[in-house]
């Protein structure tokens, strides 16, 4: 039982670190702003829209995008 | 005989008997239950506990009367505990005898 708890704790720390690495590496975190911004998250939402996982209409600059509203 | 008193004493008896020589389970149970009024079944859990505490060690030995039997012997810790319990018993009985005078 104690072994299991140690393994789980190590796994927890390891995977959080790896997850953080990929997260910061993905470009979703806007380093200039210091947090996730609207612009940086839109590609994610677009992608999710494309694979029909979610259906969120977001305002985007580009005109060729699925399920989005032009910004103006 | 009072059960609580019996329980405390059984550890002492088991360890003392094994101090003299290694015994197998049945033999040990018989020699104790002959003298102390207890049902034979209550000794095996005690043996198991003493083994877990590290006072006893178990080994298998071929016997002439058939298949190999489980033998119990004292470990160094067991010998130490036997001495301690023996000492406690002597002091205890001395004090009780004082009161009973």
């Amino acid at each position, binding site marked *: *039982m*104690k072994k*299991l*708890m140690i393994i*789980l*704790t190590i*796994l*927890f720390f390891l*995977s*959080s670190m*790896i*997850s*953080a*690495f*990929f*997260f910061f*590496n*993905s*470009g*979703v975190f806007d380093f200039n702003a210091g947090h996730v911004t609207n612009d940086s998250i839109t*590609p*994610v939402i677009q*992608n*999710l829209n494309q*694979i029909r*996982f979610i259906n969120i209409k977001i305002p985007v600059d580009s005109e060729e995008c699925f399920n989005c509203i032009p910004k103006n | 005989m009072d059960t609580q008193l019996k329980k405390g004493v059984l550890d002492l008896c088991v360890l003392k008997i094994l101090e003299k020589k290694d015994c*197998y*389970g*049945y033999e040990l*149970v018989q020699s104790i*239950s002959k003298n102390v009024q207890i*049902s*034979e*079944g*209550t000794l*095996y*859990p*005690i*043996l*198991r*506990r003493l083994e*877990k505490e590290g006072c006893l060690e178990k080994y298998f030995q071929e016997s002439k*009367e*058939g*298949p190999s*039997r*489980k033998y119990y012997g004292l470990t160094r810790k067991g010998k130490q505990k036997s001495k301690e319990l023996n000492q406690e018993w002597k002091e205890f009985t001395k004090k009780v005898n004082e009161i009973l005078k």
Partner: protein
Amino acid sequence: MNKKEFLEKLERNLKGLSKEDTKEILDDYKEHFKVGLKKKRKESEIVESLGNPKEIALETKKELMGDKENFDFPSSIMRFFFDIGRVSKKAWKKIKGDVSHAQKKFKDRKNRNYRRWKIFGLVSLNILVMIWILIAFYAVVFSLIVVGFSLILSGLAAIAFSIFILSNNPGFLMKNFSLSGVFAGISVTCLGFLWTIGSFYSGKGLSWLVKKYMQSTKRWTRK
């Protein structure tokens, strides 16, 4: 009872003991029978001399489970609810006994009714408090476990979701993002398991506290 029945009853009542201990104990008794029968004793006589298998099992469990961290899942959950139930039933009986005992004591005619009601009031207040404490205890433990499970489930969902996105072969950003999701999911799942295990331990701790409280109030009502 014959040897088979004895061993079966013994095994049944040893439920809750670790597999290793159970096997060792049963082997001990099996060998005892073997040797006894070899020495020309009758099976029924051996069974009788061994005693009641249910009592032996209870004693065995007491001896061998003293300080062991026995984490046999379902039985430890059952055990701890039974413990609480048993303690509360005992407390209830004790209180009822105390009430009637106190009633008998006060033979004074003049004050009889007044004293009876006073004691009855004190005792029922105590019972009420105990009931609330038990309810609170169950609520806390239950909610801890629920949180643990939801963490596990959300972690697993995050992993599944992220793998699903990855399977669609996305671009660089999404790939990293969903990999991040996979590991975040793993991390949350681990947290969930740790939390659930922790909640069982805290449940044990709380039930010990409740027991202690009940013991102390029993003494108080005696006064």
